[in-house]
C-alpha cells in the first residue's frame, strides 16, 4: 500500500492525521424472485403482498435457493476480479427485531461465495486500488414504520427475503473523496454487470462505513461503524465529520470507543446508537435447512464467457480504438448507456469530434431537459448525421449548434433541417468572393487599418459571416480575405 497522499491528511492540533476507511456495501441483487422463495423481489407493492409463507417464517416452511441470485453473485465476483468459491455455506445470524420474522437472517459467515478481489478507482489526479475482502449472499429484512401510531410499529415484509450481496472492502480508502469514488466505481461495475440497479434512493445500494484515524505509520486506530448512509454525498460528509470528531476526542486526551454510529443527514453529524453490547452476539451457525452451495467449474465458466465488457476494459478500448484521452474515455464509459450511445455516434466518424459533441452540447442538453440518456430527446442517429454534415463541410460548427438546438426543440433529422431552412454552408468561392468584394469596397478605413494591424482581419471575417447568415465556409472566407487584402498567413 502506497503512502497516503499529502492532500488526504487531516491537520490536527498535534500534526497531520491519516483517516482509514473500509466499506461494507449492501447491494440488492437484480432478480425476479427472492433469495429463498418464489415471492416477487420488486420494489414497492401493497404491504405484505410480495410475501410468501417462507418469508413470513411460518413454521415448517423451508427455504429453496434461487439459482439466478447465485449466478448474480458469481457474475459480481468475476467483475470484482475475485476468487469464486465453488463451495460456500449459509449460516443463521441470530437476532430479534420485528421486521425479521425468522429471528435470524440467513447469511454466509465462514464460507462466503466470493473471496478476495480488487477494484481500481480513478480520481482526477491519480488511481488507487481497493482490495475486496469478500462478497456474500444474504437475506434483506422487512421494513418497520414508526410514525403511524403512538403505541405501535407497522411492519411490511415485502423486502423480507430479497437477496442482498454484502461486498466488504479492505481498509484501503484514505479520504472522503476516495470513498465517494470507490462507491461510484463499484456502482458502475454492478450496473455494467446488470447484477444490481444501484439505486440508492430506493435502498438498492447502501453503505456502512468504517472509519478510524491514526498518525502516519502508527498501528490502526479503533474504528467506528457508521450506518444508514444512503447517498454518495452523505458518505463523504459522514467520513469528514467522523474523522474530525475522532481526532478531536484523541487530541483532547480521550479514547475512541468501538461502536456503531448513525449518520443524521439533516445535521451532517454522526451519533452513537447506544446499542446493548449483547445485541452483537449473533451466534452464527450453519443453517440446517440448507445444504452447502456447490457450483461446478462449468457453471462458473459459462457465466464468465458471457460476461459483458467491464468499465476498465471499455475505457482502455476507447482510448486505443478512438484515440480518446483517459479523461474523455472515463466520462463516456461512466455508464453503459452513454458508452453505447457514443459508439453508435462515433462508428465510422471522427471519434474526437463525436466525443466533443457528446460531452459538450449533448450532455448539456440532457442536463437542461433533466433527461436520462435512455430517454434522450436526440438519438445517436440524429447526432451522427449532424457530425457527418460537419465533417463533409455541409455546415460550419456554428450552424451545427443551431441545427442541434432545432433538433432538441422540434425534432427532425439534421439533413432535412439544413435543407428546409437553407442552412447549407456556402463553399462556392464565387458567391463568397462577391460578398467579400462588397465589404472591402464599403469599408476603406478598415482596409487601411488592416495593413498595419493584421489582427483586425477578424473584423472582416465577422462581416462576411454576418452578410451570409453564418453560412459561408470560414476557411474559404479567411483565404479570400487574406488574398484580397494582402494579409499574409500567420506563422
Amino acid at each position, binding site marked *: 500500500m502506497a503512502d497516503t497522499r499529502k492532500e488526504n491528511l487531516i491537520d490536527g492540533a498535534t500534526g497531520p492525521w491519516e483517516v482509514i476507511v473500509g466499506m461494507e456495501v449492501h447491494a440488492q441483487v437484480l432478480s425476479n*424472485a427472492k433469495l429463498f422463495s418464489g415471492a416477487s423481489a420488486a420494489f414497492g407493492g401493497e404491504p405484505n403482498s*410480495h410475501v410468501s409463507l417462507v418469508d413470513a417464517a411460518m413454521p415448517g416452511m423451508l427455504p429453496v435457493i434461487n*439459482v439466478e441470485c447465485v449466478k448474480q453473485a458469481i457474475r459480481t465476483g468475476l467483475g470484482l476480479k475475485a476468487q469464486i468459491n465453488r463451495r460456500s455455506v449459509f449460516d443463521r445470524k441470530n437476532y430479534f427485531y420485528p421486521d425479521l420474522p425468522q429471528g435470524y437472517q440467513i447469511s454466509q459467515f465462514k464460507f462466503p461465495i466470493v473471496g478476495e478481489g480488487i477494484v481500481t478507482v480513478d480520481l482526477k489526479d491519480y488511481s488507487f486500488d481497493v482490495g475486496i475482502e469478500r462478497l456474500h449472499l444474504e437475506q434483506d429484512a422487512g421494513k418497520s414504520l*414508526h410514525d403511524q401510531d403512538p*403505541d*405501535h410499529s*407497522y411492519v411490511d415484509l415485502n423486502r423480507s427475503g430479497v437477496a442482498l450481496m454484502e461486498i466488504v472492502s479492505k481498509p484501503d480508502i484514505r479520504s472522503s473523496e476516495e470513498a465517494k469514488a470507490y462507491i461510484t466505481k463499484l456502482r458502475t461495475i454492478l450496473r455494467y454487470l446488470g447484477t444490481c440497479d444501484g439505486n440508492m434512493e430506493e435502498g438498492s445500494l447502501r453503505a456502512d462505513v468504517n472509519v478510524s484515524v491514526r498518525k502516519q505509520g502508527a498501528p490502526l486506530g479503533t474504528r467506528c461503524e457508521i450506518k444508514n448512509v444512503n447517498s454518495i454525498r452523505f458518505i463523504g460528509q459522514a467520513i469528514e465529520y467522523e474523522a474530525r470528531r475522532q481526532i478531536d476526542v484523541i487530541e483532547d486526551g480521550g479514547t475512541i470507543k468501538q461502536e456503531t454510529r448513525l449518520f443524521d443527514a439533516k445535521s451532517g453529524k454522526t451519533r452513537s446508537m447506544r446499542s446493548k453490547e449483547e445485541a452483537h452476539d449473533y451466534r452464527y451457525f450453519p443453517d440446517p435447512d440448507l*445444504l452447502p*452451495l456447490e457450483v461446478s467449474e462449468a457453471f462458473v465458466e459459462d457465466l464468465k464467457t458471457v460476461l459483458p465488457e467491464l468499465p476498465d476494459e471499455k475505457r482502455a478500448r476507447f482510448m486505443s480504438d478512438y484515440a480518446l484521452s483517459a479523461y474523455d474515455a472515463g466520462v463516456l464509459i461512466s455508464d453503459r448507456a452513454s458508452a453505447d450511445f457514443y459508439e453508435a455516434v462515433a462508428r465510422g466518424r471522427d471519434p474526437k469530434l463525436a466525443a466533443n459533441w457528446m460531452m459538450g452540447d449533448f450532455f448539456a442538453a440532457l442536463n437542461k431537459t433533466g433527461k436520462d440518456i435512455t430517454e434522450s430527446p436526440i438519438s445517436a442517429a440524429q447526432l451522427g448525421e449532424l457530425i457527418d454534415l460537419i465533417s463533409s463541410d455541409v455546415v460550419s460548427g456554428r450552424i451545427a449548434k443551431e441545427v442541434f438546438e432545432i433538433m432538441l426543440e422540434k425534432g427532425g433529422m439534421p439533413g432535412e433541417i439544413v435543407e428546409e431552412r437553407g442552412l447549407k454552408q456556402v463553399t462556392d468561392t464565387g458567391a463568397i468572393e462577391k460578398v467579400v468584394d462588397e465589404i472591402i469596397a464599403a469599408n476603406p478605413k478598415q482596409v487601411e487599418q488592416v495593413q498595419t494591424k493584421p489582427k483586425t482581419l477578424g473584423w472582416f471575417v465577422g462581416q462576411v459571416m454576418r452578410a451570409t447568415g453564418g453560412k459561408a465556409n470560414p476557411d474559404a472566407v479567411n483565404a479570400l480575405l487574406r488574398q484580397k487584402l494582402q494579409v499574409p498567413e500567420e506563422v
Partner: protein
Amino acid sequence: MAKTEIDEATVRRIAHLARVKVTAEEATSLQRELNGILSWVEELNAIPTDGVEPLTSVGGAKLHMREDAVTDGNKPAAVLKNAPKSEDGFFLVPKVIE
C-alpha cells in the same frame, strides 16, 4: 481439553439472547441439563476427526435450486392471518424504535 462449565449467569444470558423468560428454578435445572449435554459433547470430542470432512447430508443429497420465477405471494390475508394485530395490510407490533 478443559471441561466447559456453564454457570447460572451464562444460562441467563443465553435465555435473554433467545428472549426466553426463565425462573430461578428453571435456571438451575437448565444449568444442570446444559452441562450434561456439554459433557456428552466432550466425550464425542475425544474421537479423532482430523482430516475427516464434516458430514452435511446423508445419501449425498445436493442443494436443490429453484428457477428465478415469481410463483408465490399476493396473499396478504393469509400472511397476516395469525397476527395478533394488523391494520391496512401491515403487522402491528409494540412500538420499537432505536
